[in-house]
C-alpha cells in the first residue's frame, strides 16, 4: 500500500470518526421559547350517588341476609378545570377519573405556554356534581395570583401535601 493510499485510508477513517463524534452531540440550539404555566396534581375523585329507600314489597323479594333498606347507584364525578391567564380563558377542560372504569384517581397535567413576563393566573378545579344529586361536594381547588416567568421557565401549580389547596413551585436554579 503506497504512502498516499495509507494517508487517504487514515483520512477517511478520521473523517468517519469525526462524523460519529459530531452526530453524537449535534447542537440543537433554539431561541429562548415561551414560558409555561403547568398544572399538575392528583386527587381522589368524589363519588356521586343517587340513593332511594326500598319499599317493603321490594325488600320481601330479596333474601333476608341481603335486605338493605337503602339502595345506591352512582359513579365518580368528572371535574372541570378552568385556567385563565391575564383575564383570558386559556383552558376549559373536563377531566374524568382515570382507569377504564373511570374509578381511579383524577390526574391533572396541563402545560399552557405563555409569553415570558408577569401574568395574572386564575385556576379553578371543581367536581361536576349534578344539582339534583345529594353528594358531599369537596371544595373547589382554586388559585389566583401573579406569576413572573422567564423564557423556558415552567411555573408549576400543584396541590399542597394535604391536597386541600394549590401552591406554586418554581425552579430553584
Amino acid at each position: 500500500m503506497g504512502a498516499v493510499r495509507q494517508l487517504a485510508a487514515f483520512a477517511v477513517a478520521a473523517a468517519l470518526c469525526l462524523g460519529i463524534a459530531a452526530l453524537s452531540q449535534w447542537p440543537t440550539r433554539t431561541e429562548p421559547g415561551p414560558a409555561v404555566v403547568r398544572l399538575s396534581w392528583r386527587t381522589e375523585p368524589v363519588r356521586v350517588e343517587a340513593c332511594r329507600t326500598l319499599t317493603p314489597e321490594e325488600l320481601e323479594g330479596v333474601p333476608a341476609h341481603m335486605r338493605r333498606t337503602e339502595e345506591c347507584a352512582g359513579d365518580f364525578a368528572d371535574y372541570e378545570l378552568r385556567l385563565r391567564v391575564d383575564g383570558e380563558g386559556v383552558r376549559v377542560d373536563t377531566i374524568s377519573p382515570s382507569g377504564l372504569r373511570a374509578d381511579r384517581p383524577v390526574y391533572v397535567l396541563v402545560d399552557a405556554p405563555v409569553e415570558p413576563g408577569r401574568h395574572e393566573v386564575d385556576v379553578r378545579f371543581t367536581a361536576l356534581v349534578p344539582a339534583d344529586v345529594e353528594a358531599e361536594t369537596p371544595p373547589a381547588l382554586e388559585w389566583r395570583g401573579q406569576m413572573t416567568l422567564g423564557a423556558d421557565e415552567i411555573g408549576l401549580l400543584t396541590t399542597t401535601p394535604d391536597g386541600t389547596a394549590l401552591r406554586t413551585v418554581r425552579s430553584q436554579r
Partner: protein
Amino acid sequence: MKLTRSAQRLGRAPLARLDALFNRLYTWRYNPLYHSGALVVACFAVLCVTGLYLLLFYRIGSPYASIERIQGQVFAGRWIRTLHRYASDAAVAAAVIHAFRMGIQNRTWGPRALAWVSGIVLLGVFLLCGWTGYVMVWDTQGQLYAVEGARLFDVFPVFSEPISRTFTGERVMPRAFFFLNLFAHIAVPVGILLILWIHVSRLARTYLWPPRRLLWGMIGALTALSVLWPATLAPEADPLRVPTDVSLDVFYGFWLPWARTVPPELTWLLITAVLVALVAVPWITRPAPEATKASVVDPKFCTGCEQCYHDCPYEAISMVPRDDDRPYPVGVVDPAKCVSCGICAGSCAPMGVGPPGRTGRDQLPAVKQFIARVRPTEDHIVLVACSRSAAGWGAERVGDAPVLAVDCAGDMHSSVVEYLVRAGAGGVVVASCPPRDCWNREGVAWMEARLFEGREAELKERVDRTRVRVVYAAEGERTVLAEAVDRFRSEIRGLDGAVAEEAIQIDTICEVPEVSVAEVDA
C-alpha cells in the same frame, strides 16, 4: 415487486462505489463495510467492558453528580464514558449499514427472514438501551428522552398513573426511577445476547468478530477520538425548565425533534408503519419461485462423502441412511432451510446435488456451448464471471476476454474450469466478489479451496493450475478486474502453448457405478 427491485438496483450502485473505494483504501480483508455485522458485535463488547467500569461509579441516589465525578476523571472516566457513547453510536451506524447491505443484496427472504426480523428487533433493542443510557445521566438531554418517552407511552391506558407525572417537578425524582432505569439498561443487553443467538441460529458457521487488525483499529480509533473529542455533559435536568440548547445524539435521538412537535399518536403511527415495512421486506423482495427452488439430491450420484453437508452455509443438508443397499448415507435437503444458493452444486464431485437446473451436471452443457461459440485459443483469457462480481453485469466480453456467466463463483463446479483449460484456453480467470461479501456466505472460499487446495470436488490434477486464476473484484471494481486480467495475460505468455483436447468427457467420467454392499465389503 417491480418497485422493490428498482429500489434495490438504485441502492446497489452507490454501495458498489463505496465498496470499491473502501477496498482500495483498506483492501477487501479489512473493508469495514464488509464487516458491518461483526463490527456491531465488537462495539457491543466495547460497550460491555466500558459499561462495567462506569457502573462502579454510578449512583442512583445522585445520578448527575456521579456522572460529573466520572467526567472529572481526566485519565480514565472521561474518555471511558466517551468511548462508551461513541461505541454505542458506531454500533447503530454499523447495524444500519449491515441491514441496508442485506436488504439491497436481497439476502433477506426465505430462511434468512429470521435473521432479518431478529436483526430489526436487535436494532430496536439497541435504541431502547441507548435511550435508558441517556436517561441515566439525567442531564437536559436525558430529561428530553425521559419526557418525550413518557409522553409516547402515556398514550396507552395501561399505567396506573401517567408516566409523565414523574417529570413534572412536583416532587424530587424518586430513586426507584433511576434504579428501574439502571436495571433496564443492564437487563436489555442480556436480551441482546439472546436475540443475537437467534439472529445467527440459521447459519452453519457464524462470523461474529471482525479481523483482528480491523477490530483493534476500530477500538484504537474510537479511543483516540474519545481522548481528543470527549463527550460533553449538559447541565443537570431541571423539570421546571423546558430543555433547550440540547446537544442531541442523532443516532439515538433522531426521532426527538419530530416527536416534540406532533401528537404522540402520530409518532406511534409512523413507528408502526416503518416497522411493518421493515418486517415485510423478506416477503416483498422474495424472488420468483423458479429462482428460489431448493436444492435436490439425486441419490443415484450421491457417494455419501458429506461434502455438501459440510459446505452448506445454512445447515440445510443432512445425511440419512439410504433406502437402497449402498452402505453409505445419502444427503437430503430441507427445503425450509435452503436458500437456493447452489453452493452444494459446486461441492459435489459427482454432480449429484444442486438447485434444479443449476447442478454441476447442468453447468456442463452451458460451458460446452460457450466453448463451441467462442472457440478459445491459447491467446484467449476466459472470464468465468460470478453475477455479483465486477464482470457480472451481463457483458459478453471484458476487454477482449470472453465472459462465461455463472450465478455464483461458489456454485461453479470445478469441471467448468477444467473444460475451459482442456479446450485450449490460454487462461481462465474466475472473477468473484471478495470472500467477505459473498452473497452466499462461503462460496468464494470453498471455490478457491477446490481449485487450489484439493478440497473435495477438487480441480483434477490433470488440469494445469498455472492457467487458472481467481480474482476478487467487487461489483464496482471493473478496473481492478481489467488490470488483473492484463497481469495474468502477461504471466501466461511465458508458459508453453495450451493444448486443446478434442473429446473431453468429464460427465461420463463422473458417472457413479452402482456399488453393492458385497462389493464394498470385498
